[in-house]
C-alpha cells in the first residue's frame, strides 16, 4: 500500500473515532457542556490535559527548535512542564473545590466584582483566540504536506471536524476525544524516535540513547552529545550542551526569565485550568495533575533526544555531500520547501555552516539549478552556509530518514493532527464558555434558561471556529509574535491574582483589578515596543518572550500594595476562601 493510501486510511479512521466518541458522549445540560458534568476520572483527565496542552507546536516544531538551539532549548522543556508543579500545588485543588465553570468565574466571585470578571474574561478570550489560530494553521499544514491537499482546504476540514465534536459533545465530548487523541499523538511521536535511537546508539529507550555512544560510522564509540559539541565547534555553531555562550545563545537572565514566564503562563492558561474543574473531587484534581505531567513528560523527555538524534543524522547525511548523492528524502522535503540548497561556491557539494543561507523563508522560483536543485529568489547572504533546514522537518522527516514503514509516517501525520485538533477544541470551549457563561449568563441575562444557555454555548463554538478558521486561512503576519503575548498575558494576569485569592484572604477587588491592569499593561507595552516598534529589549536584555515574568512580579506587588490600602473583603468572601482550602464537599460545590 502506498504512503498516500496509508495516510488517508489512518487519518480517516482516527477522525471517525473522534466523531464517534463525541456522539456517544453528547450532552444535554450546561454542566456537561462546560465541565463534563464534573465526573471525569483522574487518569482520563490526565490524558485529556496532556492532549489539550500539547499543541501542533509541541508535536511538530519543538524537537526541531531544540535541535538548533541545543542547551537554550531547555527553556521550552522546563518552561512547558514546570508550570504543572505550580498548578498541582497552588491552583488545581482549590479551584476544583471552588467548583464553578470558568476562570473568570473564580476571579469575579473571589474579588466580588463584575469589573474583575470582565478583565479576566477579555484576557481569557484573547489568550485563547491567539492560540487557536495557530492550531488551525497547523491542521492545514499537516494536510498539505501529507495528503497533498491545499492548506486552506485542510483548515476547512479541520474546522468542520472540531465544530462537530465540540458542539455536540461539549466538554464531555472534548474530554473523551482528547483521551483518544493523546494515545494517537504519543504513539506517533515515540515510535520513530525509538527506532532512530536504536539505530544510532543501540538503546531502545531514547532518554538513554540521548546520553549514549554512537554505534557505527565515523564517530563510532564517542558519546553522541560530545560529537554534537564537536560538530558545533567545527561548523561555527554554539556547542550543543554549553550554556550562555556562542552564536545565538541566550544570556542566563534571559533563560531564567523566559523559563519562568512559560511556567507561570502555563499555570495561568484558562484551557489548562478549566480541565481541573472536570474531575469529581479535590483528591482527583491533585491526582490528575500528576497523571497529566506524567503523560506530558513522556513526550517532553523524548523530544530533546529526538532533537539530538536528528541534528547528528541531518548533518552527517548532508554536510560536505555532493548534491547528486544525497539521500532520496532530501528531494521529497525540498519539494515541500522545508529544505533548500543554494550552491554558493558552485562546487555541487552541500556545505553547512552557522548563519542564514538567505534572508527569510525560501521563496522558490520555477527554475532548477544545474544539479536539479530548486532555485530560490531570496536575497543570498555572504556567509558560507548553503543549506536551509526548517525546524519542522526534524519531526516530520525523521521516520523517512530512519527508513521506517509507510504506516509509521502516516501515523505521524495522524499524530500531528491529533495534537492540533485536541488543543483547538479545548481552546474553543474556553471561548464559548467565557462568552455564554461569564458574559451572557453571569452579566447580561441572569434568568436565561438551561436550554438557552446551552444553545448560546454551541453558537459561540461555531463563531469561535469561524474566527479561528479565518485566521488559519489568512494568518496575520504577527501570529508568532502574539504567542509570546499569550504566555506573557497569562502569567501577568491570572496567576498572581488566583494565587493571592487563595492564599491571602486580605486581597481586595481594588488590589486585584489594579494588579491585573498594571501587570498586563506593562507586559503589552514591552512586547509592542520590542516586537513591533523595533526597540532593543531595554530591561536587562530580557526578550519579549520572558517579560511576562516581570509583569507577574508587578501584578503581585501592586495587588498586595493596593489591597493593604483598601478595605478588607466582605466576610462572605473570606468565608469562601476559608472554604476552598478544605477538600471536603467539592462533589456538591458546583452551583449556578
Amino acid at each position: 500500500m502506498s504512503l498516500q493510501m496509508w495516510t488517508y486510511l489512518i487519518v480517516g479512521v482516527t477522525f471517525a473515532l473522534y466523531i464517534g466518541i463525541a456522539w456517544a458522549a453528547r450532552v444535554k445540560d450546561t454542566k456537561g457542556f462546560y465541565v463534563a458534568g464534573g465526573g471525569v476520572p483522574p487518569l482520563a483527565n490526565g490524558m485529556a490535559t496532556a492532549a489539550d496542552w500539547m499543541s501542533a507546536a509541541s508535536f511538530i516544531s519543538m524537537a526541531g527548535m531544540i535541535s538548533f538551539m541545543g542547551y537554550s532549548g531547555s527553556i521550552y522543556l522546563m518552561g512547558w512542564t514546570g508550570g504543572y508543579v505550580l498548578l498541582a500545588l497552588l491552583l488545581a485543588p482549590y479551584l476544583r473545590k471552588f467548583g464553578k465553570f470558568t476562570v473568570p468565574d473564580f476571579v469575579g466571585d473571589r474579588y466580588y466584582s463584575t469589573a474583575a470578571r470582565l478583565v479576566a474574561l477579555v484576557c481569557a478570550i484573547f489568550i485563547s483566540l491567539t492560540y487557536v489560530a495557530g492550531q488551525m494553521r497547523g491542521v492545514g499544514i499537516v494536510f498539505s504536506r501529507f495528503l497533498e491537499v491545499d492548506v486552506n482546504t485542510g483548515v476547512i476540514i479541520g474546522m468542520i471536524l472540531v465544530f462537530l465534536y465540540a458542539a455536540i459533545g461539549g466538554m464531555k465530548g472534548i474530554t473523551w476525544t482528547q483521551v483518544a487523541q493523546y494515545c494517537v499523538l504519543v504513539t506517533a511521536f515515540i515510535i520513530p524516535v525509538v527506532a532512530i535511537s536504536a539505530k544510532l546508539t543501540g538503546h531502545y529507550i531514547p532518554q538513554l540513547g540521548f546520553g549514549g555512544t554512537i554505534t557505527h560510522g565515523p564517530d563510532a564509540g564517542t558519546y553522541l552529545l560530545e560529537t554534537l559539541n564537536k560538530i558545533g565547534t567545527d561548523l561555527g555553531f554554539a556547542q550543543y550542551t554549553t550554556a550562555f555562550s556562542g552564536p545565538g545563545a541566550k544570556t542566563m537572565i534571559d533563560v531564567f526569565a523566559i523559563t519562568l514566564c512559560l511556567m507561570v503562563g502555563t499555570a495561568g492558561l484558562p484551557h489548562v485550568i478549566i480541565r481541573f474543574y472536570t474531575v469529581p473531587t479535590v483528591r482527583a484534581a491533585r491526582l490528575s495533575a500528576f497523571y497529566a505531567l506524567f503523560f506530558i513528560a513522556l513526550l517532553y523527555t523524548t523530544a530533546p533526544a529526538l532533537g539530538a538524534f536528528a541534528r547528528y543524522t541531518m548533518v552527517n547525511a548532508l554536510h560536505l555531500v555532493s548534491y547528486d548523492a544525497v539521500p532520496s528524502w532530501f528531494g521529497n522535503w525540498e519539494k515541500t520547501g522545508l529544505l533548500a540548497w543554494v550552491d554558493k561556491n558552485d562546487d555541487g557539494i552541500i556545505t553547512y555552516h552557522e548563519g542564514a543561507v538567505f534572508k527569510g523563508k525560501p521563496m522558490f522560483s520555477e527554475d532548477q539549478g544545474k544539479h536539479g536543485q530548486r532555485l530560490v529568489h531570496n536575497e543570498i547572504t555572504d556567509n558560507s552556509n548553503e543549506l536551509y533546514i526548517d525546524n519542522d522537518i526534524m519531526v516530520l522527516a525523521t521516520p523517512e530518514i530512519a527508513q521506517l514503514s509507510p504506516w509509521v509516517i502516516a501515523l505521524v501525520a495522524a499524530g500531528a493532527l491529533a495534537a492540533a485538533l485536541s488543543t483547538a477544541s479545548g481552546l474553543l470551549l474556553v471561548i464559548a464558555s467565557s462568552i455564554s457563561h461569564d458574559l451572557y449568563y453571569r452579566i447580561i441575562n441572569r434568568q436565561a434558561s438551561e436550554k438557552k444557555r446551552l444553545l448560546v454555548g454551541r453558537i459561540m463554538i461555531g463563531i469561535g471556529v469561524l474566527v479561528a478558521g479565518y485566521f488559519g486561512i489568512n494568518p496575520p503576519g504577527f501570529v508568532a509574535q502574539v504567542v509570546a503575548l499569550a504566555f506573557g498575558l497569562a502569567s501577568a494576569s491570572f496567576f498572581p491574582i488566583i494565587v493571592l485569592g487563595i492564599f491571602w484572604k486580605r486581597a481586595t477587588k481594588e488590589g486585584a483589578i489594579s494588579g491585573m491592569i498594571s501587570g498586563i499593561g506593562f507586559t503589552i507595552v514591552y512586547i509592542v515596543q520590542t516586537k513591533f516598534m523595533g526597540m532593543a529589549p531595554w530591561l536587562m536584555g530580557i526578550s519579549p518572550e520572558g517579560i511576562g515574568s516581570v509583569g507577574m512580579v508587578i501584578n503581585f506587588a501592586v495587588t498586595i500594595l493596593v489591597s493593604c490600602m483598601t478595605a478588607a473583603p466582605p466576610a462572605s468572601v473570606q468565608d469562601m476562601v476559608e472554604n476552598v482550602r478544605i477538600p471536603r464537599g467539592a462533589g456538591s460545590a458546583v452551583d449556578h
Partner: protein
Amino acid sequence: MDQSRQQYWKTNKIYMFVLLSLWAVVSYGCGIVFVEELNAFHLAGFPLGFWFAQQGSIFIFVLIILAYFLLMDRLDKKHDVHE
C-alpha cells in the same frame, strides 16, 4: 475542629514550601544558574547541568506532584477533611 483546620492548613503550607523549593532548585538552580559548574560532572554522556535542564528537572517535577498527592492524601484523612 478549628484548631485541627488551622493545623491542616499549616502542614499543607509546609509541604508546599518544601516541594516548591525542590522545584526551584532542580530547574532554576541546577538547570540554569549553576548549569556551567555542574557541566564539569558527567552522567554517562550527559554533562550534568545539561541533563538537569533537558531531562532531570522534568522527571523530578513528576515526582514532586506525586509526593504532594500522597502527602495530602494522608493529611486529608488525618484531619478528617477528605471526601
